[in-house]
């Protein structure tokens, strides 16, 4: 329905640690957004947990700020932890 607001859907998968954005949908309120998310995005056993967020509640960075926000980090290779030996026991890095 065109007058239903847009919602963003995040699913945590069977072995995933974090919720991941999977797509969006329309629904008149949170309860129906949750049902719709279940019906549209978890049909193939994808999920163990669902978040739905009103798209209008998300604050996004402006594409024209891309240079100022992200370019400076591209030359600072020393910020990556690749110069240190990583102990075997440390997971999820």
């Amino acid at each position, binding site marked *: 329905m065109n007058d239903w607001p847009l919602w963003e859907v995040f699913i945590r998968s069977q072995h995933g640690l974090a919720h991941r954005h999977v797509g969006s949908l329309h629904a008149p309120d949170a309860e129906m957004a949750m049902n*719709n998310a279940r*019906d549209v995005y978890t049909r193939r056993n994808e999920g163990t947990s669902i978040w739905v967020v009103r798209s209008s509640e998300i604050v996004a960075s402006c594409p024209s700020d891309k240079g100022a926000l992200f370019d400076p980090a591209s030359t600072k290779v020393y910020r990556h932890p690749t110069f240190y030996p990583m102990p075997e026991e440390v997971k999820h890095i």
Partner: protein
Amino acid sequence: MLTPAIQFVYLTRIADSALILSQRLSELCGKGPALEEDMALANTALDLLGQARMWLSYAGEIEATGRDEDALAYLRSDREFHNFLLAEQPNSNYAEVLMRQFYFDVWHNLALARLENSTDPRIAEIAAKSRKEAVYHLRRSSDLIVRLGDGTLDSHARMQAAADSLWSFTGEFFTADFVDSAMAVCGAGFDPALLQDNWLRFVSQVFERATLRLPPGTWMLKGGKQGVHTEHLSYLLAEMQVLHREYPGAAW
């Protein structure tokens, strides 16, 4: 006295209501009022189809004449189907689609909860698996009944009309015959009359939130469980069975 013939009829009753309702919902695939709603209907249709397959497979094993789920679904005639009359009612409008689903879902949840305790382990197993799906179906249909019943003047009027026009098909849920009795006595089935109070209570509670009035009618149709159907079933079967009858054993 429990015989394979009685078990067979009992199993096809549960199977056929799921199968025929699934077929009705499938007719709406691609025609839902919103993409999300379309998916939800198709999901429900597929859930019910999966359940029908399990029940029919078991019915075929009990019958032991070599008929499998496909033979039972596609090669029986209307008089051999034992689904509730409610399940075969057409998709006249969306209010009726939702109300048909709601009346059925309430019964389905109560029935499966009973069958989970069946003395027949296979019945108990299929019921337990099916109930997880049925719980969600009921959550969804109840939610939509409340939203549309307590929605606009127009949606309220449509939902009330649907509640009234399908009401006379709900009596069949609770009337027992010798098949039900034989299955109930040995603990494999249950007495359908025992579900009536809980069914009515649940429907009343949802209707109250939906500002809908419980239909006053007491005259009830019956016959589906015994294979005597409304005219709608034959048309549905013609469409559902044509491929299998035209090309026996057709496969993808």
